[in-house]
């Protein structure tokens, strides 16, 4: 009985949906954070104009 050779490519292909899903969710969270930051920048800009 031999050990199956680990192939990163095969692993990524097999778990593509899972990995892409994790990245999508992290990306979604990062986008939410970015919009939050944008709101803060916008408020500073508004205050400087007043």
């Amino acid at each position, binding site marked *: 009985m031999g050990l199956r050779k680990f192939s990163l490519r095969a692993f990524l292909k097999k778990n593509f949906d899972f990995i892409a*899903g994790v990245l*999508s*969710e*992290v990306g979604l*969270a990062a986008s*939410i954070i970015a919009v939050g930051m944008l*709101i*803060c920048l916008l*408020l500073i800009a508004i*205050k400087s104009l007043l």
Partner: protein
Amino acid sequence: MIPSLTREDLKIIGYNLGRVGNLFSVLMLVPTIVAAAYKEFDIIPHFIAASAVAFILSNLAIYFFHTKNGMELKHAVCVAALVWIFGMLLTAVPLWSTRSTGSYLDANFDTMSGFTTTGLTLIPDIDHLPHSINFFRHYLQFIGGIGIIVVTITVLAKSEMGSVLAFKAEAREEGIRPSVVRTSRMILGIAITFMVLGAVLLAIVGISEGMNVGTSIFDGVAHSMSGFATGGFSTHSQSILFYHSVWYEVVALILIIVGGFNFAFHYTVLSGKRSEVFKNIEIKTFFITLMLSTLIIAAALLFFNVYSSPDTLFRKAFFQAASAHTGTGFATVHPLQMSGVWPNLPQMMIAMIMLLGACANSTCGGIKAIRIGILVKAFFNEIKKTLSPKSAFVREKYHHISDTPLTDTIARGAALIAIGYIFLFFIGTAVTMLYGYGATDSMYDTSSALGNVGLSSGVTSPAMPPGLKVTYIFLMWAGRLEIMAVLALIGFVILALRRGIKR
């Protein structure tokens, strides 16, 4: 007509509580590994003794309540409600015996806060806690967070309580047992993935920000457990403020926001349907309410001259808003500073969004985004109906994993839960004020307990009156179970008292 309680009903409940008790006994042995690793050999006997007591009590319950009858829904709901109380009492023992808390009541407060992923704490000196006890607290939040999702999906959903969960085909068509095994595995797999990812990222940031490697790894694992579980316990009394690091805060934010997502959403996205990210009603509702609250909180802090630069607004206003809205409770502002320096408006906004919560079927508490979204849609639907001719058929739907018609039953269910939360909020606030605390602080801490958040204005402390500690334990418990399960249990007790227990 509600049938009377029988002895067999009590046996079924007692027997199943005993079986869950064995699980708590095993869980209490895990921190002994951490204690051994950190050479805290004086702590190990506390966990072993507590675990042994739990084993004895649980197995006595299994023996004396033994029954081969399976659980019906009413039993499952009672067990789901009582398991938190049972777990709280058992796991409080090591916290109390190691003198991490002042009293056994305080220890119960902390373990209920742990299991319900609240994050309020009565531990007077977190900075000098043993590593094993600190690990235990964070680990309770992780277990509690996963546990409530399993309970919600497999038990509470079948009861049609909370209505929005009742439409889950999985829960309707299958029995509880196969659902528990399959669903638990799925939830555990997703939770561990994000927990490990979060721990690695936090550890890397910790090391790069000048902390020693051991502390970075320990803190990373602990904060990842309590962050993804939207629990909020921290290894330091200053919470996330301890690190004085924007990158630590950003990673924590990603973790807590992802932790606030619905597990059905996680499953859908991780299975390949990534478009759900843009279509899901909960994600849209959560995004809108978070941004609106950030706008109000940040504007108030800016125009009242508390903070004056974009990065300070982001790290204080947005972080606190996200921490409150996801029901986490990580803090970058000291509670006393918040109540002493922040104006009332941002404090009240934080109190409100603590009650809103993030997504359903997640580790967070509160009314939940899906109910808010449904209620808003139902509200606009009513306006449409009013403006349309009588013969017109006005139909509304919403997208949550699949397109679902918005029926009156669903809207009513969402409204009932929301009313339940608001009712308990007023009761909790009134009780807190009766103990002499100010209105804003009372509302803040009541919201925090009921919404399972963990932020405090200073009301929650070891010096709290015992009556208030018991009140907040009840609020954390009721909030975690979305009120209805607790009311069902109270109904059972009233039924037993009125009609007695039949043979």
